[in-house]
């Protein structure tokens, strides 16, 4: 844990040897949160099988406190977008994300969820879920091995641990004007509309070298 406020390091160590732990409330809160992440039981495609494998005996995601897969978004903290998001499915994914209570996190698992992956050229494939919702951790791979998912989870835990609620750098979701809900795209005549959420994602600015 991060040192508690301005307390003297030596005194704190001395106290902890005596069995007295002095921490900031924020740190205690984050410590609890990071070790009890409840993922949404939400599989889209191939990567979902590796996600299930991560929760099974060999990889055992419960070592990190994240084994409680919840079927309902209302009870979930973490959405693991495991697989190809098609255009037909994208509105539902955004809606599920909107239904999750704050604080909530997203792991984009696998190449498809990041960018469309091998199916990128397909007419019904969304080129990355980050076009509509903010993504915290991306895991490359097709599919990523369960170890990679565990690594992503630990990365996310580190992020949660260092989250601040006040002060100069609060968590982005606490910033003034942060959206509570993200607009759900509609299924249009040829494509989903709008093709991306400009608040979350912009087409890459390309600098051509010629």
């Amino acid at each position, binding site marked *: 844990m991060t040192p508690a406020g301005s307390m003297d390091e030596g005194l704190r160590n001395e106290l902890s040897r005596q069995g007295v732990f002095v921490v900031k409330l924020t740190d205690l809160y984050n410590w609890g949160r990071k070790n009890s992440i409840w993922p949404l039981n939400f599989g889209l495609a191939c990567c979902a099988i590796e996600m299930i494998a991560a929760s*099974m005996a060999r990889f055992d995601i419960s070592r990190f406190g994240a084994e409680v897969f919840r079927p309902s978004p209302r009870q979930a903290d973490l959405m693991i977008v495991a697989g190809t998001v098609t255009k037909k499915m994208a509105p539902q994914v955004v809606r599920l994300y909107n239904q999750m209570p704050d604080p909530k996190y997203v792991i984009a698992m696998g190449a498809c969820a990041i960018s469309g992956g*091998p199916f990128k050229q397909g007419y019904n494939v969304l080129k990355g879920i980050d076009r509509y919702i903010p993504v915290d951790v991306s895991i490359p791979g097709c599919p990523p091995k369960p170890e990679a998912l565990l690594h992503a989870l630990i990365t996310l835990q580190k992020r949660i641990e260092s989250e601040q609620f006040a002060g100069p750098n609060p968590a982005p979701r606490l910033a003034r004007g942060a959206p509570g809900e993200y607009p759900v795209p509609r299924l249009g005549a040829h494509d989903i509309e709008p093709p991306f959420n400009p608040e979350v994602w912009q087409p890459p600015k390309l600098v051509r070298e010629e």
Partner: protein
Amino acid sequence: MSAAPPSAPLPAGAAIDRDLLEISLGPHHPSTHGVFRMDVVLDGERVVRLKPVFGYLHRNHEKLAEGMTYLSSMPFTDRLDYFCSMTNNWAYALAVEKLAGLQVPDRAQYIRVIVGELTRLLNHACLIGFLTHDMGAMGTPLMYAFREREKILDLFESLSGSRMMCNYMRFGGCRVDLSPAWLQAARKVVDDFPRFLDEFDALLTTNEIVMTRSQGVGILPRELAINASVTGPMLRASGVDYDLRKVDRYGIYDRFDFRVPLGEHGDVYDRIMIRFLEMRESLTILRQALREIPPGPILDPKSKLRGFRPRAGEVYGRIEAPKGELGFYLVSDGSPNPYRYRVRPPSLINLTILEDMCLGQLVADAVIILGSVDIVLGEVDR
């Protein structure tokens, strides 16, 4: 079962009475095994209409394949039925070999049988795990099945470099040869598997809850099964003796001694039992194949990885994948890309009779009837 009066099925397009309840199961629902949706109309607890809705994982596999070379589609076939990449590879390789007239050497045929039957083992074990999960055995049988799956995936990983997406077969053979150490490891997995299977069998087949939940539920009559093009364990559970390993004798399946288990009632319980018995038959095939595998080349010398242009024409190749008949229909115009590339997905076609099986059943049973069909959405929607 219970003596409640049967509810009359609701014809398609009929208005929904205010006493009926229309619910949408999916596309995000823990029981639908992925992004599949059923629009269900209920009379109390009983299903009076059930319309499946597809396309939530339609990844345009066929369209993409028309824009790339024949070999480039091979890794995409892995992602059709993502439990069984080896058999998907095999079906596609078989179709292209028919088209191009390639001969697969003996050793490669044996390797294909070995990895194909290992795939069947892991698919059936996981399916039973998922199905009992749907029945309320939360996780435990699934945990056992995935433990065994990991052992088989270790074999696949050391052979092909990838756990799930093996991309292992090539037109006219296989990509890399087996090592003696691999064969030894495979023999150990095959020798250990019956212990798991006996344990699994003892836990589930005579389990009272499994029997009550699955016997007499979701009955599929023999004639309807044939007429609706149902294939695989679903068809054989309804008592139809049609296994492509015996009918087409593709590859070298005529060299092995094995039986085709058949069901009597065509209910969910029979479908579970068929899969148990098929696993045992797969083990006998595996033992024979691991014993008899000859040395030799693993790739047809005529096969070309680069500049592969099969002759013009059309061909349909099919194999007995763990879920049913997996076929590839290819139309070639002599160019390096297929003119038309079509996957015959057993999972999608086996769902044709989902409504027929569910009508009049409890909505909780509709979930396990769907589970017993054994679908993978990557293959249903492609």
